[in-house]
């Protein structure tokens, strides 16, 4: 039994100064990789946003030439008028880019990479080189997906869910190469996620600083850890399914081809078996980081830390048993539907724990509304709407009516924009100083938050009403239907709000870039937080610590009566603190 007197001063003599390429491009430093992910996935977020704007133009003003649309080729929008086949490509690629190349890498690629070693007190990830490959395969996957727009017949056009047999048959969908690129890209992305997850899991299990016990880990790390497990086990299923689909398209297999005995529903089962854990991949890290930010902004310990951890685990675990709620009316066995309904409804319970514990954290706090806190509270307020709309769809008879309507589209955006993206705006602002050594503008951050909140609700809330009216998703021209024509003013309102929403995001864009070069220099601990990362200079140096810190307490000791100031860093040793006992690590 040794004590925390670390047996190893960090052997970092090997980190000689490196050239630009090794340092910023083929870097193995987890922070640089996180930042690489940040730039690339923000780019894809922007791409997804552009696609959304085109979708909205067509829905608000069907058949009218899109301003600036004239630059698009004839095969997409002759004279700026969007074609039906281009519209489906837009929807497909919007969903795909947003889910797989914007939100997932933003949450996991950026923050798992950046935060796990910093918050646990490690020098780097367990496998830095694998980590680098994880980024580059993700980048490659994104490029392959983007290439879809430039091949003959255009991009994939079977929805982000790529339901077979439409997706398997170029003659029926009209997309030949695009659909294949979609599969190839997702196989690459799956590989990237698996490599990443493997790294995160190993790092969390093995590479924690002395004293950083499981229940002293910040909730962000807990969430990222559980997310990594979800990613590790869910993405291979998607890869497998995508490979089968690719084979159906290319070498003539018949997995999803009913004419030869294949099963169309098999694709849906495989896709959603992956897909529902995937949506929790898209929310759990957001929840974790929001927990950190809310505790900080409230200057209070998180309310019910342990139940927050169990709620994360519970959501993740239940998340494997609910995939069928996407298939209630797919022709699936209705008894199976009942089972899936119950398991889906049960997920509201751990979610309730999280929501009410966030509120409990704010209760009697000393709320400090910096930009991250604003966004975190916005997250709670908006995620609840999205989560509650999930209950409508979980009830099978009701889902029969609202399935594949704009009610679902509203749900998607409330959980993914109102949830994940708000959390990301908060998290990016929060850890920006540690990434770049500068602080983002507080004033513009606030303006961005309030305008986003306003236009976001104007854009997506009316979609509930539109969906209740029975408006179907993925419809190129709603005015084809008599019963939808009266809704056109509503659609125009949504479209205009969406444009304003997009314009508001440019504030964030400018703030981000401006602060990168001209922002206020950051202090070491600008938010007066307890986490390990704030004991490092901003930006954090290569290799993080000269000597790994020792941890004496959990991460949320705000306003502790033991000290005068309202925070108590995890590494600060009070006279009452005992040195952690460090068991020897087993060798090979």
């Amino acid at each position, binding site marked *: 039994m040794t004590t925390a007197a670390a047996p190893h001063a960090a052997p970092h003599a090997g980190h000689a100064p490196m050239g630009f390429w090794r340092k910023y491009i083929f870097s193995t430093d987890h922070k640089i990789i996180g930042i690489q992910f940040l730039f690339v996935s923000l780019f894809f977020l922007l791409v997804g946003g552009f696609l959304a704007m085109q979708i909205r133009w067509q829905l608000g003003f069907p058949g009218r030439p899109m301003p600036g649309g004239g630059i698009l080729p004839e095969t997409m929008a002759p004279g700026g008028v969007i074609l039906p086949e281009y519209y489906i490509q837009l929807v497909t690629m919007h969903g795909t880019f947003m889910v797989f190349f914007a939100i997932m890498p933003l949450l996991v690629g950026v923050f798992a990479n950046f935060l796990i070693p910093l918050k646990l007190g490690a020098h780097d990830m367990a496998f830095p080189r694998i980590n680098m490959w994880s980024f580059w395969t993700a980048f490659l996957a994104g490029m392959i997906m983007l290439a879809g727009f430039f091949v003959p017949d255009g991009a994939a056009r079977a929805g982000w869910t790529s339901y077979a047999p439409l997706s398997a048959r170029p003659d029926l969908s009209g997309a030949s190469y695009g659909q294949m690129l979609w599969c190839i890209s997702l196989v690459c992305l799956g590989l990237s996620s698996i490599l990443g997850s493997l790294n995160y899991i190993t790092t969390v299990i093995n590479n924690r600083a002395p004293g950083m016990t499981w229940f002293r880990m910040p909730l962000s790390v807990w969430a990222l850890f559980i997310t990594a497990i979800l990613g590790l*086990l869910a993405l291979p299923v998607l890869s497998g399914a995508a490979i089968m689909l690719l084979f159906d398209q290319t070498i003539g297999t018949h997995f999803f081809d009913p004419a030869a005995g294949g099963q169309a529903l*098999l694709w849906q*089962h495989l896709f959603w078996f992956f897909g529902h854990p995937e949506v929790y991949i898209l929310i759990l890290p957001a929840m974790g980081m929001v927990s950190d930010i809310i505790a900080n902004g409230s200057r209070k310990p998180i309310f019910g830390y342990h139940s927050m951890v169990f709620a994360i685990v519970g959501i993740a675990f239940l998340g494997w048993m609910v995939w069928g709620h996407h298939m209630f009316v797919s022709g699936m066995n209705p008894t*199976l539907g009942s089972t899936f309904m119950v398991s889906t409804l049960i997920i509201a319970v751990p979610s309730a724990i999280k929501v009410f514990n966030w509120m409990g954290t704010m209760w009697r706090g000393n709320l400090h509304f910096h930009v991250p806190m604003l966004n975190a509270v916005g997250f709670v307020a908006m995620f609840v709407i999205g989560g509650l709309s999930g209950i409508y769809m979980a009830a099978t008879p009701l889902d029969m009516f609202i399935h594949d309507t704009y009610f679902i589209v509203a749900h998607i955006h409330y959980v993914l924009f109102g949830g994940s993206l708000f959390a990301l705006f908060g998290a990016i602002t929060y850890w920006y100083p540690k990434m770049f050594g500068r602080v983002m503008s507080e004033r513009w951050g606030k303006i961005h938050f309030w305008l986003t909140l306003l236009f976001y609700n104007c854009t997506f809330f009316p979609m509930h009403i539109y969906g209740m009216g029975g408006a179907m998703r993925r419809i190129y021209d709603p005015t084809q239907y008599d019963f939808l024509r009266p809704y056109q003013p509503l659609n125009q309102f949504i479209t205009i709000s969406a444009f304003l929403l997009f314009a508001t995001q440019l504030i964030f864009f400018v703030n981000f870039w401006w602060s990168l070069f001209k922002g206020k220099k950051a202090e070491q601990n600008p938010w007066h937080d307890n986490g390990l990362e704030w004991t490092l200079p901003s930006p954090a140096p290569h290799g993080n610590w000269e000597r790994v810190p020792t941890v004496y307490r959990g991460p949320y000791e705000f306003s502790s009566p033991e000290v005068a100031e309202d925070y108590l860093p995890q590494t600060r040793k009070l006279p009452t603190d005992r040195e952690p006992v460090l068991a020897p690590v*087993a060798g090979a």
Partner: protein
Amino acid sequence: MHTAQPHKHPNYLLIWLYLFLLTVAELGLAFELPISRNMKLILLLFLAVWKALLVALFFMHLKFERWNLRILAIVPLPLAAILILAVITEHIW
């Protein structure tokens, strides 16, 4: 120093012999036999699982690992079972 308590290596050749014999038994089952198809199926699956367990427990040393690594190793199995069983009910109802 491999694990905290280094274990004695089991007799690997004996396990190899086991695996060999089980494979032979499986092959025997592949012939036309006076037993029902379902019986055959169950026996074959049983033998396959037996062999797989031998490999996992001895060759992969799962038998000698700590409980938490064993848990890690079996986490995916229930998920796999859930997927297959749920989808199969599709064809039984």
